[in-house]
């Protein structure tokens, strides 16, 4: 059983308008995965429920600040006992993509250009990581 899977979060900074025409901005998770597959929506929903703004109906994971996104990433790490998560913005992803030409260098993008957040619990407590993470 593997319990050393690294998680990757790719997020986007979005500037938009609310229904009243006010400018709003937020961070939106666009991809969340490890080397064996995407993180299930069940896991995401469970952890995101603590961050969901009251009245929000969308399934999207949106955060008002990077700090909040970082806390969410730690909570996910704890939930699935992952040792580490790499946070990468779409902008930095594109900088990384620009410099890679093959799969090997592509795989390094999150590690090289992302921000690493370690699981304070170490990430080796729960054994059934596959069951918790993936379909």
């Amino acid at each position, binding site marked *: 059983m593997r319990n050393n899977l690294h998680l*990757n979060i*790719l997020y*986007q900074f979005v500037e938009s*308008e609310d229904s009243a025409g006010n400018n709003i901005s937020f961070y939106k998770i*666009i*991809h969340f*995965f490890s*080397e*064996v*597959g*995407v993180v299930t929506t069940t896991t995401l929903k469970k952890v995101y429920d603590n961050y969901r703004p009251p009245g929000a109906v969308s399934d999207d994971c949106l955060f008002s600040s990077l700090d909040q996104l970082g806390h969410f990433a730690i909570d996910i790490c704890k939930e699935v006992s992952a040792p580490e998560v790499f946070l990468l913005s*779409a*902008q930095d*992803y*594109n900088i990384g*993509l*620009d410099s*890679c*030409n*093959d*799969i090997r260098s*592509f*795989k390094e993008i999150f590690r090289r250009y992302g921000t690493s957040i370690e699981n304070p619990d170490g990430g080796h407590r729960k054994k059934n990581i596959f069951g918790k993470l993936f379909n």
Partner: protein
Amino acid sequence: MDDGGFLQLTTPEVKEYDTVFPGENWFFYWRTSPSLWETKLREYQDSSPIFVPIYWGLHSEHPDQFDFGEYRPEADLKRLFTLAKSLGRELTIVLPTTPSPFLPSGGVPAYLARTIMMSEEGMGVSIVDSEGRLNKLFSFYDPRTFQSFRKFTYHLGQFITQSGFNCEVFGADFGYLSNGLYKSYFDDKSIAFEQGFNRYLKQIEITEPERIEQLKENHHLEETLKIDYAILIKNLYTDSAVEAIPANWAGVLKFAHLGGAPEDIFARTNDMWEHHGDFFKPFFNILVNDLLPSSVLLSPGLKKGVLQKALKDIVSSSLITSHLDNSLYEDDLVTSFNPLIFFNIYVGDTSQQKNLEFLLNGGGLRYYFDREYHWMYRILHSSFRYKPDFDQEEIIHFFFGSLLTLEDFNHVLRLFMNGGRVFIDIDGLDEEISKKLSVFLTENSIDTEKINFMTPIVKAQLGEGLIITYDNKKLSEVGLMKKIGFWETMIKFLKLNNLKVQIDEGLYYMWKHRSSNTYELNYEEIRRVSIYNPTSYKKKSTILSSKNYAFLKTVDEINAQVKSTPIGVDIELMPGASISLDFGYFE
């Protein structure tokens, strides 16, 4: 077939995978030495035309320089076509009018690889090809790219005319499926697109100032204008190709690439993640979307076994020919099997429209079809035009009011008058069309029936012709089970006839049909169900008996066992198994 005087002692073996023939009749001439073109063409055994995509970047290494074999043998298209002709092979030129995911830089010359394409989420678009290379795609909205494309197509057209090629030239709109819907590689949110869109707005400000005023009041209009701009630029590329190659131009084909969605890159760069079974659903979805599937991005390892078998079974020469002939109905091709389709859903050219998801799923239509008529419906990304040779008896046509133009509607009425069966969602239907429908029904004294069943329904019947109107928005407000109940009732009324298939999770199946031949005169037609097990487990399926069907035979059994029972035919499929079963259908 002319063998060019070459004596063959053994039957050439058709290879499961070839880097030059990577699948579905594609010939990648740049992937081998020109000295091997003849050998490769000899190996090709299929009778249907060979697609030769034009690699723009190969023929134009420097601005304003074009090489079709004058300088380098690998660019010598004339030699390639002469060779093919001498071997009796039919080549069809495919000229990409969008970025090509299987080519470095998407096929554009290196001097144009400037602005990388962007997905809606702001991610640079890069696609993994069958050999594990990362192909970055570059924006077609850069004006320099368009100017160069125009020059290139002009020179290509000159070359084709001077060489005397009489082959057809198809434009290729390459794309992929995302959430089950087609997206073109032309769609792009890069800075090049935004800059072009701003120039477009300035132009509109001069020609249609009232639209800019509306934009200030309604910001949602910007999305509509962006779609208009994207369509305009896409058409410019196609038009310049048509202008340059008028005599050989045969239309635009839409190809959807398996493994070609921008977000697929994460799965495709992780060996532990990607599995050949993952491609069945998108593959069948591509067929349902009436697109030509392409597996050229998939590695040989992924295409082994049951997926390869399904690709060969379904992407048959008849399916390709039907697309090349631009015939909506494949039923004319009586000698070969074609997908059995009961429903056509018309969505216009709306690959960028965000409300498509709501139209298809809001009222539960697609959910119901996926549940009860798996892969037996088709989403058509085109306007509706009635043709007198429509085989309208079998197919039920669905239209959404918000997408229906007056011209489409006139054709819908012609279809109805000729016995066609039609569903129209009245939500968003243009008032003029709505009025025209009422006047048409009254003036022609057509019997109508009004019912309230979750939504107001109007049923109009004239002989075999049937129009049912309903309100998708109203239907979207009820629960999922009620939506299913609604469609179950509606479809039951149409008395469609097909065998029921019970199937374990993880199995995929598709129905095909063909007319009966002289040895099968007891039957109206022959229906074939092909079942595939891409999983690592033994699975079961049952095809339930029905009074109008006779089980005829099994075909191409691989690791599958069949047993007839009083209730139908039981099939056991081992991991990687596949099987087809033929049934005769009689009235």
